[in-house]
Protein backbone atom coordinates (compact mmCIF):
# COMPACT_ATOMS: atom_id res chain seq x y z
CA UNK A 1 0.00 0.00 0.00
CA UNK A 2 2.86 2.24 0.88
CA UNK A 3 4.49 1.32 -2.39
CA UNK A 4 1.33 2.17 -4.21
CA UNK A 5 1.13 5.57 -2.53
CA UNK A 6 4.75 6.28 -3.41
CA UNK A 7 4.31 5.32 -7.04
CA UNK A 8 1.21 7.44 -7.36
CA UNK A 9 2.97 10.38 -5.75
CA UNK A 10 5.95 10.00 -8.07
CA UNK A 11 3.74 9.80 -11.09
CA UNK A 12 1.73 12.83 -10.06
CA UNK A 13 4.99 14.76 -9.42
CA UNK A 14 6.33 13.86 -12.88
CA UNK A 15 3.10 14.95 -14.41
CA UNK A 16 3.26 18.26 -12.60
CA UNK A 17 6.93 18.90 -13.57
CA UNK A 18 7.10 17.70 -17.16
CA UNK A 19 4.18 19.80 -18.46
CA UNK A 20 5.83 22.87 -16.86
CA UNK A 21 8.94 22.20 -18.91
CA UNK A 22 6.89 21.71 -21.95
CA UNK A 23 5.00 25.00 -21.36
CA UNK A 24 8.41 26.78 -20.80
CA UNK A 25 9.41 26.05 -24.35
CA UNK A 26 5.88 26.72 -25.65
CA UNK A 27 6.56 30.42 -26.17
CA UNK A 28 9.69 29.87 -28.28
CA UNK A 29 8.18 27.03 -30.31
CA UNK A 30 5.10 29.09 -31.03
CA UNK A 31 7.28 31.76 -32.53
CA UNK A 32 9.14 29.17 -34.66
CA UNK A 33 5.92 27.30 -35.72
CA UNK A 34 4.26 30.36 -36.70
CA UNK A 35 6.97 30.49 -39.27
CA UNK A 36 5.83 27.28 -41.13
CA UNK A 37 2.59 25.30 -41.20
CA UNK A 38 3.94 21.76 -40.76
CA UNK A 39 5.69 22.87 -37.60
CA UNK A 40 2.29 23.27 -36.14
CA UNK A 41 1.66 19.52 -36.44
CA UNK A 42 5.05 18.03 -35.38
CA UNK A 43 5.95 17.92 -31.68
CA UNK A 44 9.07 19.53 -30.48
CA UNK A 45 11.77 17.17 -29.31
CA UNK A 46 12.11 18.97 -25.99
CA UNK A 47 8.38 18.40 -25.32
CA UNK A 48 8.09 14.94 -26.79
CA UNK A 49 10.54 13.17 -24.47
CA UNK A 50 8.96 14.32 -21.16
CA UNK A 51 5.59 13.52 -22.52
CA UNK A 52 6.79 10.09 -23.48
CA UNK A 53 8.35 9.58 -20.09
CA UNK A 54 5.21 10.75 -18.37
CA UNK A 55 3.18 8.45 -20.52
CA UNK A 56 5.42 5.49 -19.83
CA UNK A 57 5.39 6.19 -16.12
CA UNK A 58 1.62 6.54 -16.19
CA UNK A 59 1.32 3.41 -18.23
CA UNK A 60 3.53 1.47 -15.83
CA UNK A 61 1.65 2.73 -12.81
CA UNK A 62 -1.66 2.02 -14.37
CA UNK A 63 -0.48 -1.37 -15.68
CA UNK A 64 0.86 -2.34 -12.29
CA UNK A 65 -1.84 -1.04 -9.99
CA UNK A 66 -4.99 0.03 -11.82
CA UNK A 67 -5.15 -2.47 -14.59
CA UNK A 68 -5.20 -5.61 -12.36
CA UNK A 69 -7.94 -4.09 -10.21
CA UNK A 70 -9.80 -3.04 -13.28
CA UNK A 71 -9.41 -6.48 -14.85
CA UNK A 72 -10.36 -8.12 -11.56
CA UNK A 73 -13.47 -6.02 -11.48
CA UNK A 74 -14.13 -6.84 -15.14
CA UNK A 75 -13.57 -10.56 -14.51
CA UNK A 76 -15.80 -10.45 -11.48
CA UNK A 77 -18.42 -8.65 -13.47
CA UNK A 78 -17.98 -11.12 -16.31
CA UNK A 79 -18.35 -14.00 -13.94
CA UNK A 80 -21.40 -12.43 -12.39
CA UNK A 81 -22.94 -11.82 -15.80
CA UNK A 82 -21.98 -15.29 -16.93
CA UNK A 83 -23.45 -16.75 -13.79
CA UNK A 84 -26.55 -14.67 -14.25
CA UNK A 85 -26.76 -15.77 -17.85
CA UNK A 86 -26.30 -19.36 -16.85
CA UNK A 87 -28.93 -19.03 -14.15
CA UNK A 88 -31.20 -17.28 -16.61
CA UNK A 89 -30.57 -20.04 -19.13
CA UNK A 90 -31.21 -22.62 -16.48
CA UNK A 91 -34.34 -20.81 -15.40
CA UNK A 92 -35.41 -20.53 -18.98
CA UNK A 93 -34.83 -24.23 -19.55
CA UNK A 94 -36.61 -25.05 -16.34
CA UNK A 95 -39.47 -22.75 -17.22
CA UNK A 96 -39.65 -24.30 -20.66
CA UNK A 97 -39.66 -27.70 -19.03
CA UNK A 98 -42.38 -26.61 -16.63
CA UNK A 99 -44.24 -25.07 -19.54
CA UNK A 100 -44.04 -28.32 -21.42
CA UNK A 101 -45.17 -30.18 -18.33
CA UNK A 102 -47.98 -27.71 -17.80
CA UNK A 103 -49.01 -27.99 -21.40
CA UNK A 104 -49.02 -31.76 -21.08
CA UNK A 105 -51.02 -31.46 -17.88
CA UNK A 106 -53.45 -29.09 -19.54
CA UNK A 107 -53.77 -31.41 -22.53
CA UNK A 108 -54.31 -34.36 -20.20
CA UNK A 109 -56.85 -32.39 -18.18
CA UNK A 110 -58.63 -31.34 -21.36
CA UNK A 111 -58.60 -34.93 -22.51
CA UNK A 112 -59.97 -36.13 -19.17
CA UNK A 113 -62.58 -33.40 -19.22
CA UNK A 114 -63.58 -34.40 -22.74
CA UNK A 115 -63.79 -38.05 -21.66
CA UNK A 116 -65.84 -37.13 -18.61
CA UNK A 117 -68.17 -35.04 -20.74
CA UNK A 118 -68.41 -37.83 -23.29
CA UNK A 119 -69.10 -40.38 -20.54
CA UNK A 120 -71.66 -38.05 -19.00
CA UNK A 121 -73.34 -37.67 -22.37
CA UNK A 122 -73.38 -41.41 -22.87
CA UNK A 123 -74.72 -41.95 -19.36
CA UNK A 124 -77.30 -39.22 -19.88
CA UNK A 125 -78.39 -40.80 -23.14
CA UNK A 126 -78.61 -44.19 -21.47
CA UNK A 127 -80.60 -42.88 -18.53
CA UNK A 128 -82.82 -40.90 -20.85
CA UNK A 129 -83.42 -43.95 -23.03
CA UNK A 130 -84.11 -46.08 -19.97
CA UNK A 131 -86.54 -43.56 -18.50
CA UNK A 132 -88.25 -43.17 -21.85
CA UNK A 133 -88.56 -46.93 -22.30
CA UNK A 134 -89.88 -47.37 -18.76
CA UNK A 135 -92.36 -44.56 -19.22
CA UNK A 136 -93.52 -46.09 -22.48
CA UNK A 137 -93.88 -49.50 -20.86
CA UNK A 138 -95.88 -48.06 -17.98
CA UNK A 139 -98.03 -46.09 -20.38
CA UNK A 140 -98.67 -49.19 -22.46
CA UNK A 141 -99.44 -51.25 -19.36
CA UNK A 142 -101.81 -48.58 -18.08
CA UNK A 143 -103.44 -48.39 -21.47
CA UNK A 144 -103.77 -52.17 -21.63
CA UNK A 145 -105.30 -52.27 -18.15
CA UNK A 146 -107.67 -49.48 -19.06
CA UNK A 147 -108.66 -51.26 -22.26
CA UNK A 148 -109.16 -54.54 -20.36
CA UNK A 149 -111.22 -52.80 -17.69
CA UNK A 150 -113.31 -51.04 -20.28
CA UNK A 151 -113.77 -54.29 -22.17
CA UNK A 152 -114.80 -56.13 -19.01
CA UNK A 153 -117.17 -53.38 -17.96
CA UNK A 154 -118.54 -53.28 -21.46
CA UNK A 155 -119.14 -57.03 -21.40
CA UNK A 156 -120.79 -56.79 -17.99
CA UNK A 157 -122.94 -53.90 -19.14
CA UNK A 158 -123.91 -55.72 -22.33
CA UNK A 159 -124.66 -58.90 -20.37
CA UNK A 160 -126.78 -56.95 -17.91
CA UNK A 161 -128.55 -55.22 -20.74
CA UNK A 162 -129.15 -58.50 -22.53
CA UNK A 163 -130.38 -60.08 -19.32
CA UNK A 164 -132.66 -57.12 -18.73
CA UNK A 165 -133.95 -57.32 -22.28
CA UNK A 166 -134.54 -61.05 -21.88
CA UNK A 167 -136.27 -60.54 -18.51
CA UNK A 168 -138.41 -57.78 -19.93
CA UNK A 169 -139.30 -59.80 -23.00
CA UNK A 170 -140.22 -62.83 -20.96
CA UNK A 171 -142.13 -60.70 -18.50
CA UNK A 172 -144.11 -59.14 -21.32
CA UNK A 173 -144.78 -62.54 -22.85
CA UNK A 174 -145.82 -63.91 -19.46
CA UNK A 175 -148.22 -61.06 -18.87
CA UNK A 176 -149.65 -61.45 -22.33
CA UNK A 177 -150.15 -65.17 -21.74
CA UNK A 178 -151.67 -64.64 -18.30
CA UNK A 179 -153.97 -61.90 -19.50
CA UNK A 180 -154.98 -63.29 -22.82
CA UNK A 181 -155.41 -67.01 -22.25
CA UNK A 182 -158.85 -68.26 -21.32
CA UNK A 183 -159.43 -71.28 -19.09
CA UNK A 184 -160.11 -73.47 -22.10
CA UNK A 185 -156.90 -72.31 -23.76
CA UNK A 186 -155.03 -73.11 -20.53
CA UNK A 187 -156.57 -76.56 -20.52
CA UNK A 188 -155.56 -77.13 -24.12
CA UNK A 189 -152.02 -76.18 -23.22
CA UNK A 190 -152.16 -78.58 -20.23
CA UNK A 191 -153.41 -81.36 -22.48
CA UNK A 192 -150.60 -80.76 -24.94
CA UNK A 193 -147.99 -80.59 -22.19
CA UNK A 194 -149.28 -83.83 -20.63
CA UNK A 195 -148.80 -85.52 -23.96
CA UNK A 196 -145.31 -84.08 -24.31
CA UNK A 197 -144.23 -84.46 -20.66
CA UNK A 198 -141.58 -86.99 -19.71
CA UNK A 199 -141.78 -90.04 -17.46
CA UNK A 200 -142.18 -90.10 -13.70
CA UNK A 201 -139.85 -92.84 -12.73
CA UNK A 202 -140.38 -93.37 -9.02
CA UNK A 203 -138.62 -96.71 -8.81
Amino acid at each position, binding site marked *: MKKLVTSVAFALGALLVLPALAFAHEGEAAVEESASGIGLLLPKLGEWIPMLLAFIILWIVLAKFAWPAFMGMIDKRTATIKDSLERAESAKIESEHILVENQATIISAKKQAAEIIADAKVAEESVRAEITAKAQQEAQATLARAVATIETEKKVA*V*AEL*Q*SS*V*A*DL*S*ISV*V*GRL*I*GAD*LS*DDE*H*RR*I*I*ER*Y*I*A*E*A*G*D*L*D*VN
Partner: protein
Amino acid sequence: MSTDRTLQRKESAVYVQTLLEAVKAENRVFEVSGQLEQAVTIIRGNFELRNTLGDQGVPLAARKNILAELFTGFDEALLAVLGIMVEREDIPLLSRVNEAYVEAAEEYLGSIILDVTTVVELDAPLREAIRKKYSAQLGRDVLLREHLDPSIMGGIVISTHGRRIDASVASQLESARAVLADVTSRG
Protein backbone atom coordinates in the same frame (compact mmCIF):
# COMPACT_ATOMS: atom_id res chain seq x y z
CA MET B 1 -138.82 -83.44 20.74
CA SER B 2 -136.26 -86.18 20.33
CA THR B 3 -133.19 -85.56 18.23
CA ASP B 4 -132.55 -89.22 17.51
CA ARG B 5 -133.52 -90.03 13.91
CA THR B 6 -134.69 -93.54 14.62
CA LEU B 7 -136.81 -92.28 17.45
CA GLN B 8 -138.16 -89.47 15.28
CA ARG B 9 -139.08 -92.00 12.61
CA LYS B 10 -140.88 -94.10 15.17
CA GLU B 11 -142.71 -91.10 16.56
CA SER B 12 -143.71 -90.07 13.04
CA ALA B 13 -144.97 -93.59 12.37
CA VAL B 14 -147.11 -93.42 15.49
CA TYR B 15 -148.68 -90.16 14.38
CA VAL B 16 -149.26 -91.51 10.87
CA GLN B 17 -150.74 -94.75 12.14
CA THR B 18 -153.02 -92.89 14.53
CA LEU B 19 -154.21 -90.52 11.81
CA LEU B 20 -154.64 -93.25 9.24
CA GLU B 21 -156.67 -95.42 11.58
CA ALA B 22 -158.82 -92.46 12.48
CA VAL B 23 -159.66 -91.51 8.88
CA LYS B 24 -159.97 -95.00 7.44
CA ALA B 25 -163.40 -95.43 8.96
CA GLU B 26 -164.71 -92.36 7.19
CA ASN B 27 -162.93 -93.25 4.00
CA ARG B 28 -161.13 -89.90 4.03
CA VAL B 29 -157.61 -91.22 3.70
CA PHE B 30 -156.90 -89.51 0.37
CA GLU B 31 -158.73 -86.30 1.27
CA VAL B 32 -156.76 -85.99 4.52
CA SER B 33 -153.52 -86.46 2.64
CA GLY B 34 -154.32 -83.29 0.70
CA GLN B 35 -155.22 -81.43 3.87
CA LEU B 36 -152.04 -82.61 5.59
CA GLU B 37 -149.99 -81.50 2.58
CA GLN B 38 -151.68 -78.10 2.73
CA ALA B 39 -151.04 -77.78 6.48
CA VAL B 40 -147.38 -78.65 6.03
CA THR B 41 -147.01 -76.05 3.27
CA ILE B 42 -148.63 -73.34 5.39
CA ILE B 43 -146.72 -74.06 8.60
CA ARG B 44 -143.38 -74.62 6.87
CA GLY B 45 -143.76 -71.42 4.90
CA ASN B 46 -144.54 -69.21 7.89
CA PHE B 47 -141.72 -68.67 10.33
CA GLU B 48 -143.79 -66.72 12.86
CA LEU B 49 -146.53 -69.35 12.90
CA ARG B 50 -143.99 -72.11 13.33
CA ASN B 51 -142.37 -70.30 16.25
CA THR B 52 -145.70 -69.56 17.90
CA LEU B 53 -146.82 -73.17 17.70
CA GLY B 54 -143.56 -74.25 19.33
CA ASP B 55 -143.47 -71.48 21.96
CA GLN B 56 -144.03 -72.83 25.48
CA GLY B 57 -144.79 -69.29 26.62
CA VAL B 58 -148.01 -69.33 24.61
CA PRO B 59 -150.76 -71.31 26.35
CA LEU B 60 -151.47 -74.64 24.73
CA ALA B 61 -155.14 -73.82 24.35
CA ALA B 62 -154.25 -70.67 22.44
CA ARG B 63 -151.94 -72.58 20.13
CA LYS B 64 -154.61 -75.17 19.47
CA ASN B 65 -157.09 -72.39 18.77
CA ILE B 66 -154.70 -71.01 16.19
CA LEU B 67 -154.65 -74.41 14.49
CA ALA B 68 -158.42 -74.69 14.60
CA GLU B 69 -158.95 -71.23 13.14
CA LEU B 70 -156.24 -71.61 10.55
CA PHE B 71 -157.36 -74.99 9.31
CA THR B 72 -161.11 -74.60 9.52
CA GLY B 73 -162.87 -77.35 7.60
CA PHE B 74 -159.99 -79.76 7.92
CA ASP B 75 -160.62 -83.27 9.19
CA GLU B 76 -161.16 -83.44 12.95
CA ALA B 77 -158.73 -86.34 13.33
CA LEU B 78 -156.06 -84.36 11.49
CA LEU B 79 -156.62 -81.34 13.73
CA ALA B 80 -156.43 -83.60 16.78
CA VAL B 81 -153.12 -85.09 15.65
CA LEU B 82 -151.73 -81.63 14.89
CA GLY B 83 -152.84 -80.53 18.38
CA ILE B 84 -150.98 -83.43 19.95
CA MET B 85 -147.86 -82.61 17.92
CA VAL B 86 -148.04 -79.02 19.14
CA GLU B 87 -148.51 -80.21 22.70
CA ARG B 88 -145.52 -82.52 22.47
CA GLU B 89 -143.44 -79.97 20.56
CA ASP B 90 -143.23 -82.25 17.55
CA ILE B 91 -144.18 -79.67 14.88
CA PRO B 92 -140.66 -80.00 13.32
CA LEU B 93 -141.62 -83.61 12.50
CA LEU B 94 -144.52 -82.47 10.34
CA SER B 95 -142.76 -82.90 6.96
CA ARG B 96 -141.62 -86.40 7.91
CA VAL B 97 -145.16 -87.25 9.10
CA ASN B 98 -146.55 -86.01 5.79
CA GLU B 99 -144.18 -88.16 3.73
CA ALA B 100 -144.88 -91.20 5.86
CA TYR B 101 -148.60 -90.59 5.65
CA VAL B 102 -148.48 -90.41 1.84
CA GLU B 103 -146.61 -93.69 1.70
CA ALA B 104 -149.05 -95.30 4.14
CA ALA B 105 -152.02 -93.89 2.29
CA GLU B 106 -150.73 -95.11 -1.06
CA GLU B 107 -150.21 -98.53 0.39
CA TYR B 108 -153.66 -98.53 1.92
CA LEU B 109 -155.34 -97.20 -1.23
CA GLY B 110 -153.23 -99.26 -3.62
CA SER B 111 -152.55 -96.13 -5.64
CA ILE B 112 -149.83 -93.56 -6.15
CA ILE B 113 -150.68 -90.00 -5.18
CA LEU B 114 -149.66 -87.39 -7.72
CA ASP B 115 -149.54 -83.73 -6.82
CA VAL B 116 -150.80 -81.81 -9.84
CA THR B 117 -150.43 -78.03 -9.98
CA THR B 118 -152.17 -75.91 -12.63
CA VAL B 119 -153.46 -72.38 -13.11
CA VAL B 120 -157.03 -73.46 -13.80
CA GLU B 121 -159.00 -76.35 -12.38
CA LEU B 122 -158.67 -79.59 -14.24
CA ASP B 123 -161.69 -80.91 -16.04
CA ALA B 124 -162.65 -84.58 -16.27
CA PRO B 125 -160.91 -85.28 -19.59
CA LEU B 126 -157.66 -83.83 -18.31
CA ARG B 127 -157.83 -85.83 -15.08
CA GLU B 128 -158.49 -88.93 -17.09
CA ALA B 129 -155.63 -88.20 -19.44
CA ILE B 130 -153.25 -87.75 -16.52
CA ARG B 131 -154.44 -90.87 -14.74
CA LYS B 132 -154.23 -92.90 -17.90
CA LYS B 133 -150.73 -91.77 -18.79
CA TYR B 134 -149.17 -92.13 -15.37
CA SER B 135 -151.06 -95.29 -14.40
CA ALA B 136 -149.59 -96.95 -17.42
CA GLN B 137 -146.21 -95.50 -16.68
CA LEU B 138 -146.11 -96.36 -12.96
CA GLY B 139 -147.97 -99.63 -13.16
CA ARG B 140 -150.43 -98.58 -10.47
CA ASP B 141 -153.56 -96.55 -10.26
CA VAL B 142 -152.94 -92.86 -9.51
CA LEU B 143 -154.82 -90.40 -7.38
CA LEU B 144 -154.52 -86.70 -8.12
CA ARG B 145 -154.03 -84.09 -5.43
CA GLU B 146 -154.85 -80.92 -7.30
CA HIS B 147 -153.37 -77.50 -6.49
CA LEU B 148 -153.97 -74.12 -8.11
CA ASP B 149 -150.96 -71.82 -8.44
CA PRO B 150 -151.13 -68.75 -10.73
CA SER B 151 -147.38 -68.30 -10.48
CA ILE B 152 -146.75 -71.14 -12.92
CA MET B 153 -148.62 -69.01 -15.52
CA GLY B 154 -149.94 -72.04 -17.36
CA GLY B 155 -149.20 -75.63 -18.18
CA ILE B 156 -148.85 -78.26 -15.48
CA VAL B 157 -146.48 -79.41 -12.74
CA ILE B 158 -146.65 -83.03 -11.57
CA SER B 159 -144.72 -84.39 -8.62
CA THR B 160 -144.62 -87.46 -6.45
CA HIS B 161 -142.07 -89.11 -4.19
CA GLY B 162 -139.52 -86.38 -4.81
CA ARG B 163 -139.82 -86.63 -8.59
CA ARG B 164 -141.13 -83.63 -10.48
CA ILE B 165 -142.18 -82.89 -14.04
CA ASP B 166 -142.33 -79.16 -14.63
CA ALA B 167 -144.28 -78.52 -17.82
CA SER B 168 -145.36 -75.06 -16.73
CA VAL B 169 -145.35 -71.96 -18.89
CA ALA B 170 -143.22 -70.25 -16.23
CA SER B 171 -140.45 -72.82 -16.50
CA GLN B 172 -140.56 -72.74 -20.29
CA LEU B 173 -140.35 -68.97 -20.25
CA GLU B 174 -137.43 -69.22 -17.87
CA SER B 175 -135.71 -71.61 -20.29
CA ALA B 176 -136.46 -69.23 -23.13
CA ARG B 177 -135.08 -66.33 -21.10
CA ALA B 178 -131.88 -68.23 -20.39
CA VAL B 179 -131.49 -69.16 -24.06
CA LEU B 180 -132.23 -65.60 -25.13
CA ALA B 181 -129.70 -64.15 -22.71
CA ASP B 182 -127.11 -66.73 -23.75
CA VAL B 183 -127.67 -66.21 -27.48
CA THR B 184 -127.49 -62.43 -27.24
CA SER B 185 -124.40 -62.56 -25.03
CA ARG B 186 -122.62 -64.68 -27.64
CA GLY B 187 -123.53 -62.04 -30.16
